[in-house]
C-alpha cells in the first residue's frame, strides 16, 4: 500500500464509495413515536417551567434583584430626614385626637 499509485487508487475508490448509496430508513412507526413525544412535551409544560425557575442563572438573578430592591428601599428610607417621620406622627395624632391631655388642659376646659 506504500506505492504512490496504489494510494491514489485507494483514495479515489474511497471517495467514490458512496456512489449508488440508498437512503437510510428509520425504524417503523416513527409517526407513533413522534405523537407520543408531542403529548409528553405538552404534559411536561409545568415541569419545564419549574426547571427554568430552578436554573442556577435564573435563581441567582432573582436573588440579585431581591437584594437590589431591598438595598434601594433601605437607602431611600435612610436618606429621608428624621424630621418628616416626627411630623407625620404629630399629624396622625392630632387627626385622631390622640394627644395626651395634661392637667393644665383639664383646668382650661373647666
Amino acid at each position: 500500500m506504500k506505492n504512490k499509485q496504489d494510494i491514489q487508487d485507494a483514495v479515489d475508490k474511497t471517495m467514490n464509495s458512496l456512489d449508488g448509496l440508498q437512503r437510510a430508513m428509520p425504524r417503523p412507526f416513527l409517526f407513533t413515536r413522534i405523537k407520543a413525544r408531542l403529548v409528553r412535551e405538552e404534559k411536561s409544560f409545568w415541569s419545564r417551567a419549574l426547571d427554568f425557575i430552578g436554573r442556577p442563572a435564573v435563581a441567582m438573578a432573582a436573588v440579585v434583584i431581591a437584594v437590589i430592591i431591598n438595598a434601594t428601599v433601605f437607602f431611600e428610607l435612610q436618606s429621608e430626614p428624621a424630621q418628616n417621620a416626627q411630623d407625620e406622627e404629630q399629624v396622625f395624632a392630632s387627626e385622631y385626637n390622640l394627644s395626651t391631655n395634661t392637667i393644665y388642659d383639664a383646668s382650661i376646659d373647666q
Partner: protein
Amino acid sequence: MDEQILIEKLKQGDEAAFRQVVETWQNMVYNTAIGILQNAEDAEDVAQEVFVQAFESIKTFKAESKFSTWLYRITISKSLDHLRRKKRKKRFAYVQSLFGADNQTIIEKPDFHHPGVILDNKERASVLFKAIDRLPENQKTAFTLHKLEGLSYQEISEVMKTTLSSVESLMHRAKNNLKKWLAEHYESG
C-alpha cells in the same frame, strides 16, 4: 395530496396531514441526520425532534422556499446542535478523567456503517465517514447533502442560505481535505 393543501391543513393542526408529512419526508430527514451524526439512535432522536419542531412552528413557514428545503434546514440545525452537545459532553468527560473524578474510560467512537451503502463498498465507506467526521461543520453539511441526499449545488445553496459559488468553494475544500486525510490513512495503513 397537493403540497400546498397539505401545509395548509398542517397549519390548522390536522393530524392526518401531519402523519402524511412524516411519512413523506421521514427518510429524507433521517438519512440527512444519520449522515451528519453517524449514529442510528441519535439520528432517530433528531428526526423526531425535527418533526415536532416542524409541527410546532409550521405557522412560521412562508412558502418562499420549498417545504423540503425548510425541513432540511431544521434537520441540519438540529443535527449540528446534537453533535455540539455530544462533543461538549465528551470534552467534559475527558477533563473529568484527567482529574480522576471518576474511573470511567472514554469510549472511542465505533466505525459507522451506513445501512444504504453497497456491500462491496462497506469498508471503504466506513473509512470515508471517519474522514467526513473531521470536516468543519459547513463543509460536512455541503458534502453530506450532495453525496447522501444527491442535492445539486444550487439546491444546497438554498438549504444553506448561501451563494452557489460559496457551495462550490465548500465542496472543493471538503474534497481536498478528505483526499489529504485518506492519503495519510492509506500511507500509514
